[in-house]
């Protein structure tokens, strides 16, 4: 019979985000003036100032049983690290309550709790005492830790001379070997090399088989699948799904699909426009001029945008940027590049524009579009990032046919070569 080792009820954590303009609230001068003005508020002084409340985690209830390996997924900022921080008592919850049966070891970020000036050996003992172990207990585990981390030659070197991979190796080895009943591992293993990552997964599995509990945050679905049976999905600080790891991952990917942008964009014109310009429509069009999500590498395509100018403006330009999957701009083009519109005043009204992209310009792959209407150096009237998504496909295997393999790079334009041959 396994029983719960973690029980959380409605855990919530509120942060105050201070806005840049009010960082001076942190200055002692202001605290001191407040202290004299309202001495009874001294304890609140640190929290006072212009700040916005923000719930990083809200109403999270969960029970984790002994021996479970729980995978935690969610996008950046979903509250995964915050949950682990609450469970490891690094910070206190704003509301709710959790009960833990067992000692917790956490591996939150690179170099957890290491002191840079101390050697690996000294740090192992330091961490042991943090986990509440005596020196004798740590000594028993010492060789296994060093062996697992593979840092024998550096064990008497200050850890500040370690590479970031070595740092994580040692940190993980310490956390996993000091026999905590609950092991919390945040996305840290990615720094280690492949061999070590595999070793860590194996170790976590072993830890769980030994009846201890592991909570594992990762963005690597493959390792989550191989390690965890159960998973939870956090989104915007809320626990939105829990179940088997497989279905958790499915729910996680669906989260993205639900809001993936398409290859067309449509917006009703405003009744009483408050902005100087508004984007009404945008789309990717194939060589035939029809909207399309995929375009052919060897055919031209175009990016169409329609915007309404509500007041006349001069020096206005429309810009289209094509970006790769991580958002790096690959090419940026404007409607004055190849027209006589430069510097001309544009009256109010609706503008339909099309940027033609020649064939064989960009490599096959997924791209996104940013669209702007701007007065350079002065004003951005329309600014739409990641507005459209589309894919360039190599239907006729044009590139790979030639070399037989897919090529790296951004640009697919065939270049002129000169080949001279001489018989040595």
């Amino acid at each position, binding site marked *: *019979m396994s*029983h*719960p080792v973690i*029980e*959380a*009820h*409605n*855990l919530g954590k509120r*942060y105050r985000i201070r806005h840049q303009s009010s960082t001076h609230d*942190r*200055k*002692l*001068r202001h*605290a001191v003036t407040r202290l004299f003005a309202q001495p009874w508020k001294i*304890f609140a002084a*640190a929290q006072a100032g212009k700040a916005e409340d923000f719930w990083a985690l809200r109403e999270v*209830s*969960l*029970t*984790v*049983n002994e021996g*479970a390996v729980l995978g935690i997924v969610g996008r950046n900022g979903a509250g995964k690290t915050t949950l682990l921080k*609450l*469970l*490891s*008592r*690094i*910070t*206190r*919850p704003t*509301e*709710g*309550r*959790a*009960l*833990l*049966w*067992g000692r*917790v070891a*956490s591996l*939150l*970020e690179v*170099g*957890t*709790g*290491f*002191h840079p*000036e*101390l050697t690996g050996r*000294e740090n192992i*003992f*330091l961490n042991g*005492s*943090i986990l*509440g172990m*005596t020196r004798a207990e740590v000594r028993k585990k010492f060789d296994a830790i060093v062996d697992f981390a593979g840092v024998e030659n550096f064990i008497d070197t200050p850890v500040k001379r370690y590479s970031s991979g070595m740092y994580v190796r040692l940190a993980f080895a310490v956390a996993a070997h000091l026999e905590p009943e609950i092991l919390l591992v945040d996305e840290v293993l990615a720094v280690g090399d492949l061999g070590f990552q595999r070793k860590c997964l194996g170790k976590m599995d072993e830890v769980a088989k030994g009846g201890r509990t592991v909570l594992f945050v990762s963005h690597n679905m493959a390792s989550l699948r191989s390690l965890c049976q*159960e998973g*939870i999905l956090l989104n915007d600080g809320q*626990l939105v799904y*829990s179940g088997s790891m497989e279905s958790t991952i499915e729910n996680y990917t669906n989260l993205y699909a639900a809001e993936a942008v398409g290859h067309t964009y449509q917006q009703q014109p405003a009744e009483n426009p408050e902005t100087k310009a508004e984007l009404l429509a945008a789309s990717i069009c194939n060589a035939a001029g029809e909207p399309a999500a995929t375009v052919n590498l060897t055919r031209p395509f175009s990016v169409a945008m329609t915007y309404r100018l509500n007041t006349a403006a001069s020096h206005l330009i429309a810009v289209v940027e094509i970006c790769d999957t991580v958002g790096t701009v690959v090419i940026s083009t404007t409607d004055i590049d190849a027209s006589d519109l430069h510097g001309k005043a544009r009256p109010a009204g609706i503008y339909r524009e099309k940027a033609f992209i020649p064939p064989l310009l960009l490599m096959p792959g997924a791209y996104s579009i940013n669209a702007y209407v701007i007065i350079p150096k002065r004003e951005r009237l329309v600014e739409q990032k990641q507005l459209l998504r589309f894919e360039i496909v190599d239907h006729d295997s044009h590139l790979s046919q030639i070399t037989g393999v897919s090529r790296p790079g951004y640009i697919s334009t065939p270049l002129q070569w000169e080949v001279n041959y001489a018989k040595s």
Partner: protein
Amino acid sequence: MISGPSSSQAKPDAPPEAVIQPQGSGLWAEFSELWRYRELFWTLMARSILVRYKQTLVGVLWALIRPLFTMIIFTLLFGQLAKFGEDPAAGEVPYFLLVFAGVLPWQLFSTSLTGSAGSVVANAGMVSKIYFPRTILPASACLTTLLDFLIAFALFIILMLGFGFMPSWRLVFLPGFLGIALLAAMGAGFWLSALNVHYRDIRHILPFMIQMMIYISPVGYLSSKVYGSTLPGYLKTLFILNPMVAVIDGFRWSLLGVPGALDPIAFAVSAGMVLLIFISGYLFFRKMMDTFADVI
């Protein structure tokens, strides 16, 4: 496995090891937790001692050089220039020994305070990544300086014996005065280390504060000089509010047996201040420590 509040069917019989909740768990629970973490306390102390002497050229010598030079300069300044050396209250004790007896606890206090005021921020990496009772940081930083103190104290005893002064029965009270000095440093350290997390200005203010305090503390002169002076009464009252008055007077009294060194009223007031600073500092630190990891 996810449950609403209703699903606590399979509660294990054992009480939970840790309860995570918005408020702290009370003083008693905190002290027993500190006791459980005593191993960490020693490790941290050993760590800072190691780190302190590891990369310094003269290492342990530093513990001697600083008090020795302070003593020499103050003896010249106050004893020779300001002619405080002819104080009848001093009896036949050479002036430099009187000064040294003041420099000893002063040095302990100021290094302890500096160390503990910076302790939380200096360990930001640990604070933001692992849990341990945060009070350990300023407290252990304070006690670390005891080693320096002992080294300087040994020098003092050698000088004292060399000049033919035998310690008397009053020496047994020295640990008490030492304790007061540490309490004062720790209390102020609690205040400043917690404030330092929010207001890094403390780092700039503290050296200045310590510099001022050495002059308003009876390090280079005897407290009796102040009591016997023509200063207005309220300044004399302010003077004895300084926690270091109790400590330094106590050191002079117990080490050198200077007859009029320990004024009972001044001692009580000053020691009371120490207690006040310590208790308020601890409570303040306790209030602030829960969110150190969020703001550090």
